[in-house]
């Protein structure tokens, strides 16, 4: 126990330094902002800001990026309540009852409960990370290449299974990402692969340029397809403080949501979206009057909001302990770490304790900032909701372009950006969700490396992945997961769940 306190003290020393507090604040504010602004998601924003973080020390960079991520969850729920439009996919369910409450003039209590639920979940999830991560990291220190290969396989399978849309398409997108990952000099042999004589490609496809093109640029084009009208709430926000009755109704949903979110967040492929859906389903099922749901039940806001925040945070566990991203945002974090020269994996905790614990403690600090600062600022956020998209997108575009250019000061990178922009739009049009591609791209080079090393050690015997007890178990888990989704009955259920 005292070891945990020591560790948290180390973390506090890093996270609570003035510089890091300022960057954490900047991150959560920016995150809230993009959560609120229409047509700008966390993946696009984090890719846009990656170039800026190159100049920061690693822990400051990660603290900022993490702040953006959970800040965006928070901002996303604000728009869900106020305009019935989820700012992020994790707050889709918050729309149902949150907006209904707003229509009844109870937007204030809905937003407050959402904030309180998020804060509570954030605190608990931070503790979960602090007590769980070291155990997992110590366990993983023993892992060899075969185990890592198996883990990454499981991560990729799970990410696909839990994503929406066609399974086959998602798998194909992962392989496409793996293929993009092979571009550049092969580390083992020094051979240049798929560079087509372009010197810029010798170091591989730049991951900032790729994710910005595929996510940010194509997102703008998709948004420009149709003019979106946002109806701003006409009803009064109402008093902010929830009534005693509201509190009583919310306590258990918050606790249950936190528990669900913390568990689902750890799973590869889990995280905020899945957690919020699961929590809403649970609350509706155990409610005494399920009929109230959808008509402004505060439980339907409290539970999912706690769950998505807990899930968003505990999805850092696989990242920090195993170096495995559980969703595309975490894949970007891995990219950010690698740019900083840190190899993600279990050794981070022992080799860089201030980074590891600093990021964890900063999450708690960031959550506190979100509650204290955002509730009084709701008025300002509502004003921001009125910013029309036609003013927003040229600005976003300019930021992207400056960001890509600043990485290498090379205008050729902007040509690559355009290529990926068009590609991203084509993906959307032909029904291929691009997120799995990013996971494949990030994990690709590692996957290849571990695959090669494992087979060198086993003298080319492929059965090493199954014979090794740990990697065998992990691969079996991946296979079971895959089987479950392919089986028709469960597949139908999965489609139903995503329809809801």
């Amino acid at each position, binding site marked *: 126990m005292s070891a945990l306190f020591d560790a948290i003290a180390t973390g506090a020393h890093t996270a609570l330094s003035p510089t890091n507090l300022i960057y954490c604040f900047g991150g959560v504010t920016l995150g809230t902002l993009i959560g609120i602004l229409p047509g700008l998601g966390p993946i696009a924003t984090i890719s846009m800001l990656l170039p800026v973080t190159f100049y920061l020390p690693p822990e400051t960079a990660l603290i900022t990026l993490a702040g953006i991520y959970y800040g965006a969850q928070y901002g996303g729920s604000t728009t869900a309540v106020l305009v019935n439009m989820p700012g992020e996919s994790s707050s889709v369910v918050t729309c149902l009852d949150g907006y209904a409450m707003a229509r009844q003039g109870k937007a204030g209590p809905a937003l407050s409960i959402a904030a309180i639920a998020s804060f509570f979940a954030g605190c608990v999830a931070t503790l979960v990370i602090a007590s769980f991560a070291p155990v997992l990291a110590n366990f993983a220190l023993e892992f060899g290449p075969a185990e890592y290969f198996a883990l990454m396989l499981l991560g990729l399978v799970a990410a696909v299974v839990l994503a929406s849309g066609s399974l086959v398409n998602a798998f*194909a997108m992962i392989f496409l990402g793996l293929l993009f990952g092979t571009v550049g000099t092969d580390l083992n042999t020094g051979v240049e692969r798929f560079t087509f004589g372009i010197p810029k490609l010798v170091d591989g496809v730049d991951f900032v340029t790729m994710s910005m093109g595929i996510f940010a640029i194509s997102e703008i084009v998709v948004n*420009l397809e149709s003019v979106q009208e946002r109806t701003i709430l006409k009803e009064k926000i109402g008093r902010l403080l929830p009534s005693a009755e509201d509190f009583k109704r919310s306590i258990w949903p918050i606790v249950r949501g936190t528990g669900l979110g913390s568990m689902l967040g750890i799973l590869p492929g889990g995280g905020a979206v899945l957690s919020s859906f699961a929590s809403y389903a649970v609350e509706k099922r155990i409610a005494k009057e399920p009929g109230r749901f959808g008509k402004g039940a505060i439980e339907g806001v409290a539970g999912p909001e706690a769950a998505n925040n807990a899930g968003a945070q505990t999805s850092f566990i696989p990242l920090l302990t195993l170096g495995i991203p559980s969703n595309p945002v975490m894949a970007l974090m891995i990219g950010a770490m690698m740019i900083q020269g840190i190899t993600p994996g279990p050794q981070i905790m022992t080799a860089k304790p201030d980074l590891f614990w600093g990021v964890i403690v900063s999450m708690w600090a960031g959550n506190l900032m979100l509650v204290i600062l955002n509730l009084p600022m709701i008025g300002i956020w509502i004003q921001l909701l009125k910013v029309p998209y036609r003013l927003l997108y*040229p600005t976003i575009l300019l930021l992207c372009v*400056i960001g890509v*250019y600043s990485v290498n000061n090379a205008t050729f990178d902007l040509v690559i950006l355009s290529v990926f922009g068009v590609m991203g739009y084509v993906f959307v049009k032909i*029904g291929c969700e691009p997120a799995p591609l990013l996971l494949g791209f990030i994990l690709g080079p590692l996957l290849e490396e571990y695959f090669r090393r494992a087979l060198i050690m086993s003298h*080319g015997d492929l059965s090493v992945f199954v014979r090794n007890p740990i990697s065998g178990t992990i691969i079996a888990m991946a296979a079971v997961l895959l089987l479950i989704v392919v089986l028709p009955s469960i597949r139908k259920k999965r489609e139903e769940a995503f329809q809801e």
Partner: protein
Amino acid sequence: MSIARLLRQQDFWAGLMFMAFGAIGIGGGLMYRVGTTQEMGPGYFPRAIGVALVLLGAIIFMRGILAPGKEVSRWAIRPLILLIVGILAFAYTLEWLGFVVAATALIFLSGVGGKEFDFKEVILLCAAVVTSAVLIFVKALSLPIPVWP
């Protein structure tokens, strides 16, 4: 199924795309040494990925033919082209005419791409955004970007 309808199938195009990329991967296996399982060459992994992509692409392609599903919705050609032209114009002019000209070109071209284009509004937006970008990126963060020609 009529050819016109087939050509609107998302799966038809997705399948073709994946198979084409798969062919590139397999081509990598031909260009670069594949090696053995114990001693893998640079072509081993790309070839394996290529084979998987061709197989998955074929499944998606067949699905498009046998079980028609979602169709490709209308392309937003105008915003796409103007955005890309804007980025390329920025790339082309930046080091030659400076940031102010390049950014103005980018904002104007992308603004024209939108549905509601208001000349006066875009000028105001340009002035505000370019000024703050120069202040933040060139003055405060001192990125090495030429401001004027």
